[in-house]
């Protein structure tokens, strides 16, 4: 086992923490378009480039659609590519999101969660990245700036693993994480370089064209390959099946990378997929994503002080969804409150519906209640979260109805 390395601490906000992770990750190409609350990431990276502190190509583009397209092209040429966006910018990328994943390009993107328009809003909710959850990207939801830094570095290693070769979205709550200052421990740059290595391009066999020779899966005039041609009913489904399998293989890789990173950094987030807090003897738990789950820990402490057996579980990796794990873990409790900072209009919040699917038919499945909160950056104070915990405790006695509850709205 490696020793935890000595690190320096800097006061950084979440966006800056991501920019530092990119600076240290030996990234070749960054193409991004500024959008609040992601702007600081782009600004800091361009500062680093301007000051000659990082050796990467910064491609200025006219839109997010082009930003991600440039990253796909760069990645197809063998580069380690990064971009960042939020809300409307992510939506403008939508077409390319699917293309990035289907071309198996290990692009990493920071999504600073912001409520999609309209009406125009710049504050946090999860409906932007939730809308992209089916695009074939790995999704990691962070709780704070430190985790945004750590997860960005891990994301490159996960995405580039030959077993995976899928893009990764690292999300951080707009303003709540992106703009709040925190002490962030930074690994020495050479340690990050050693952890990631330079990007190795996957080699593939195409016997009918190149015989037994393995050729790099990239744009290379020496071994020309076609990227993104027409793929109709005869083979498209097989290529989707490959993506399904790659996502399944990603579980092991995410776990391994999280563990290896913990060994050098001394930091881990639960088992990499979920982070339980005081759940051992808990009767009820609240499950959710992102910065709210930091608040939840404080509320758990408060309620524990009152003698109530409550805990919290933060889901860190949302795609691939840790369904087996959650099925097992949540079956231990009587009642589960699910916090959704997003809503699928006409249905439930996205976390709730995915959890219901994961727990379907489980023998000891708990009752589950969906709490939609915080849309458009509406605050989730400790007081409100405490009330939600109390509602879940009450449901344990009175039953879960109604299972769909909206809290913090007038």
């Amino acid at each position: 086992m490696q020793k935890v390395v000595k690190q320096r601490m800097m006061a950084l906000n979440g966006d800056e923490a991501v920019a530092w992770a990119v600076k240290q990750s030996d990234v070749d190409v960054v193409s991004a378009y500024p959008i609040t609350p992601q702007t600081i990431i782009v600004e800091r990276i361009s500062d680093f480039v301007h000051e000659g502190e990082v050796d990467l190509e910064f491609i200025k583009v006219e839109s997010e659609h082009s930003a991600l397209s440039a990253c796909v092209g760069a990645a197809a040429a063998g580069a380690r590519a990064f971009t960042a966006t939020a809300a409307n910018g992510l939506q403008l990328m939508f077409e390319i999101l699917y293309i990035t994943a289907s071309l198996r390009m290990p692009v990493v993107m920071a999504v600073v969660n912001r409520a999609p328009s309209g009406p125009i809003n710049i504050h946090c909710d999860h409906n932007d990245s939730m809308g992209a959850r089916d695009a074939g990207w790995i999704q990691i939801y962070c709780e704070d700036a430190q985790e945004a830094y750590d997860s960005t570095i891990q994301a490159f290693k996960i995405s580039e693993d030959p077993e995976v070769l899928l893009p990764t979205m690292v999300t951080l709550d707009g303003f709540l994480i992106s703009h709040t200052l925190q002490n962030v421990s930074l690994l020495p740059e050479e340690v990050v370089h050693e952890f990631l290595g330079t990007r190795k391009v996957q080699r593939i066999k195409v016997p009918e064209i190149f015989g037994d020779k393995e050729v790099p899966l990239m744009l290379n005039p020496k071994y020309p390959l076609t990227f993104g041609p027409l793929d109709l009913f005869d083979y498209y489904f097989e290529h989707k099946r490959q993506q399904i399998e790659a996502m399944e293989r990603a579980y092991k890789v995410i776990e391994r990378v999280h563990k290896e990173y913990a060994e050098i950094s001394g930091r881990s987030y639960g088992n990499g997929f979920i982070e339980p807090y005081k759940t051992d003897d808990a009767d009820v738990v609240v499950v959710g994503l992102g910065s709210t789950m930091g608040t939840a820990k404080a509320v758990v402490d408060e309620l524990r002080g009152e003698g109530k057996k409550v805990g919290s579980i933060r889901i860190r990796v949302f795609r691939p969804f840790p369904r087996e794990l959650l099925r097992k873990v949540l079956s231990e409790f009587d009642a589960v409150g699910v916090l959704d900072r997003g809503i699928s209009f006409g249905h439930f919040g996205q976390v709730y519906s995915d959890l219901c699917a994961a727990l379907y038919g489980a023998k000891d499945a708990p009752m589950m209640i969906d709490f939609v909160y915080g849309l458009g950056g509406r605050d989730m104070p400790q007081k409100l979260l405490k009330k939600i915990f109390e509602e879940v405790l009450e449901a344990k006695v009175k039953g879960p109805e109604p299972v769909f509850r909206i809290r913090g709205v007038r």
Partner: protein
Amino acid sequence: MSKRGWREIPIAGIPFLKSTEYHTGDWKVFRPVIDGEKCIKCGNCWVFCPDSAIEWDGDSVPEPNYDYCKGCGICAEECPVNAIEMVR
């Protein structure tokens, strides 16, 4: 050729055959047939074919390559002497 499974093809949608081995014209309904008697060897069909599916050496009667010809009929339309018939 039997269709391959997901384990047997390259990832990322990379085609596993050379582009010439994909017979892009296998779904046509009509095919152009050139009447060598009427043809004046002007090369119009060769020029206008959007799929470069007319093969022509510059001297003889041009020949459509039915592997790639999609049967659009542009050659028949452009032939100045109506030497090309679209046959079902």
